[in-house]
């Protein structure tokens, strides 16, 4: 699940949660240039796809903007 309100997704039991940009534009950011907007959206989508290839024990956050890597798995407590 790609969601800007990712904490809500985690606490309600979604297992693979990808942090989206904002509620009004989950997969991208119109305040960026068209190229950067597209690159940002692509990063979110590819993070989501990679999440589908990773085994998770339960609700897990994947953050496309985590520094230095394409995904960051953090188990919800």
């Amino acid at each position, binding site marked *: 699940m790609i969601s800007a309100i990712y904490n809500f997704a985690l*606490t309600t039991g979604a297992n693979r949660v990808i942090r989206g940009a904002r509620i*009004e*534009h*989950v997969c991208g950011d119109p305040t960026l240039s068209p190229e950067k907007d597209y690159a940002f959206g*692509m990063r979110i*989508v590819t993070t989501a796809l990679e999440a*589908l*290839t990773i085994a998770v024990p339960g609700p897990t956050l994947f953050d496309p903007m985590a520094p230095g890597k394409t995904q960051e798995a953090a188990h919800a407590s």
Partner: protein
Amino acid sequence: MSGPLRVVHYVNQFFGGIGGEEKANVGVSVKTGAVGPGRALEAALGEGARVEATIVCGDNFASDQAEDAVRAISAVLDRLKPDVLVAGPAFASGRYGLACALACKTARQRGVAAITAMHPDNPGVASARRDTYIVPTGTATTSMPAALAALAPLALRLGRGERLGPAEVEGYIGSGVRRVHDRGRPGYERALDMLLDKLHGRPYRSEVPYAAPERVTPAPPIADLSRARIAMVTTGGLVRKGNPDKQVSANAVRYHRHTVAELESLSPREWEAYHAGYFNHIVNSNPNYILPLSFLRDLERQGRVGKVHEHIYALPGVSTPVAVSMGHGRSIAEDLKSGGVEGALLVAT
């Protein structure tokens, strides 16, 4: 009271002493007096009640030939005219739980008070809790004594024609039905007392029942994305431009499936958002923000994704009761599975 309360007990073929799974197809029969757990039930009911008869029915029969079972149980109840029917306990046995729920429903329709007991996760609870008194039990028969001890006093009161109080007071599983009643003190006083109890570490009880979200076992990972069929679902209220399908903007009772087999991306000339929970104008300028078709097409061309599924699923995910949402989710998931989809991106606004 002129005499002891007259109780009829409903059990399945196993507790009725007929046999196990191989006898699950046997029809309805009646035994005089208490049988099996009925004896312990009679002891728990005490002097004031007697188990007149035991209705025994195979779990498969009650499920596969429900109409015949209802007819036979009705005939027994009309003949014996008991004060109360007790069914089970069924513990975690699903078919037995459903059969107990059926027996109780049948009794009530004949004007006979009824009560059953089973584990809260038994499917019989979901099917009957709204109109049947169900006492919670453990999953296994080892919890029989506790189950009967909790069930018996309620059965006695029902048999005397009493109406039970709220579930939280009486100890049966809440029916989900709300009744207006006076708690005696205004809400702000109760809320402040609750807050003080919380701050002092004292026990308190919320008046708003908390339903823990369902835990779903995570789907296993996809082994090879470059061969996988990937679908897209959105709760962002995506509709075709002008909303020709007449989707609502909140509290959706249906979702819509659209075909995107011919599309490279979602054009704002053909798609828009209709969703009461957020400002839609940004999505209306680029619907791919809530349904990332343009990105997936690029990845498909690059061979990083096997195939973009030809159908997308859309609804506004706002103000929808959890039970309705679960129905939508199940239905979409079944459709995805039958379409050979291995993974889905759900964009939630």
